[in-house]
């Protein structure tokens, strides 16, 4: 399969590869996909007190399109509020990267990873609030 130039560019120069401290209060982690399916994405966000995504990092096991989708996703959500980031949908990623139909699931995975990271962050916040409210 021939890849689009944008996929190749992200694949060869992936943005924001790395790991944030998953135990930190201001970090949310999303781990989606399955090894048996051939793709696993881990996307992490670091959120400011104002609810803005200050940093985003990913690691992905998958094909070039999966790596490019996660790279693009981290690039796009950086600097956005959680509400804004949540509105990002897979078709935007698929369109930007010119993904062929057989690779659309890579963009779906990236959307899931963002949502999952946000959810994880919110859960942590809620747990912390509950904890501080109770003390």
């Amino acid at each position: 399969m021939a890849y689009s130039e944008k996929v190749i560019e992200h694949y060869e120069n992936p943005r924001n590869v790395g790991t944030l401290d998953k135990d930190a209060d201001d970090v949310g982690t999303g781990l989606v996909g399955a090894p048996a399916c051939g793709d696993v994405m881990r996307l992490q966000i670091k959120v400011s007190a104002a609810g803005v995504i200050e940093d985003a990092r990913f690691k992905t096991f998958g094909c070039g399109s999966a790596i490019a989708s996660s790279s693009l996703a981290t690039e796009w959500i950086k600097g956005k509020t959680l509400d804004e980031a949540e509105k990002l949908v897979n078709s935007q990623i698929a369109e930007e990267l010119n993904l062929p139909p057989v690779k659309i699931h890579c963009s779906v995975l990236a959307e899931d990873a963002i949502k999952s990271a946000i959810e994880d962050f919110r859960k942590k916040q809620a747990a912390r609030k509950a904890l501080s409210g109770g003390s």
Partner: protein
Amino acid sequence: MNLPIYMDNHATTPMDPRVLRAMEPYFLSQFGNAASRTHRFGWEAEAAVEDARETLARFIGAESGKEIVFTSGATEADNLAIKGVAEYYGSKGRHIVTTVIEHKAVLDSCKRLEKDGYSVTYLGVDHSGRVDPEEVRRALTDQTILVSVMLANNEVGTIQPIAEIGAITREKGVLLHVDAVQGVGKTRFDVEAMNVDLASITAHKIYGPKGIGALYVRRKKPRVRIAAQMDGGGHERGNRSGTLNVPGIIGFAKAAEILMNEGAAEAERLRQLRDRLHQKISAKLELVTLNGHPEHRLPGNLNLSFSFVEGEGLMMAIKDVAVSSGSACTSASLEPSYVLKSMGLDDELAHSSIRFGLGRFNTEADVDFVADLVIGKVSRLRDMSPLYEMHKDGIDLKSIQWAAH
């Protein structure tokens, strides 16, 4: 060094220049139709074809060129063998035995026959991809008319115990078809010594041209009959109608002749190159698994799984070398290789597999370049892999509830 390096010789091989030179006159001056009986052009073409037939018969240990039926390639030969035998012997019995790791040309021909009321037993393979001949014996019934087993597998290169299977089918009076496409000329193959009754071969896997193959059909002890699947002018003793591809046939025979002379030395050279590639990679990378049989394997085949790295992603990274992968992402179905799965490999290891297929024109410099490239890129992709990080942190990946998608 010319990049990209071609290391996908199971898919197809470049033509040997000697083959091209042998073919050339048959496009230009000796272009006759081998079926033309009324002039010299036809006679010359026919004589050349008959010579080629004899060469190809010798190539596979057959007694006579009359046992060679030319086809468009191995897919057609497999179809002709299986459907042709099923149709001809259908009144005798309607059961066929094959294996789960056959090429789709065999498997899908069998599936077609199942729709027509035949029953097919698909034998499994062990972890190295080998069929147990005793399982073949146990699968035979009084309804069995044909056993079809490949000589060597196209993905993992595992060589099947054809002689042992042939002894059983001969004893039981069942016909044996062998898809010899990947193994012929690279590992021992002799239809007489191995009691093979039908065999599919093709030119483009042995440095010959695309578009020409052959089906060996035994004429003696026993005389094997097939029902033609192509209607027309009755070429190839009525077994396969269609004007003969004379230049292709000449090239096919030349390719076979080269292997008869040089095949043993070439196999040894490829084995050494292949082992060099494997050793270099394994010396620098952890968690690399060999797929296939360590010994009973085609000399040019190296199928490796790189844990925690996805095969298609890796191929993109090593685009300076042309290889293939058992990763699902390379197929439209998103299912990983059925061959690797049949051998009991986890889906994730199947996704992480790369097939290196070394051939005649690969050099030691190619191997060294590819080894370094693979080592560098696998390391880079592992640094990007959440699974590798989890593995390093001591997390058992099997303990995680992954959401299938």
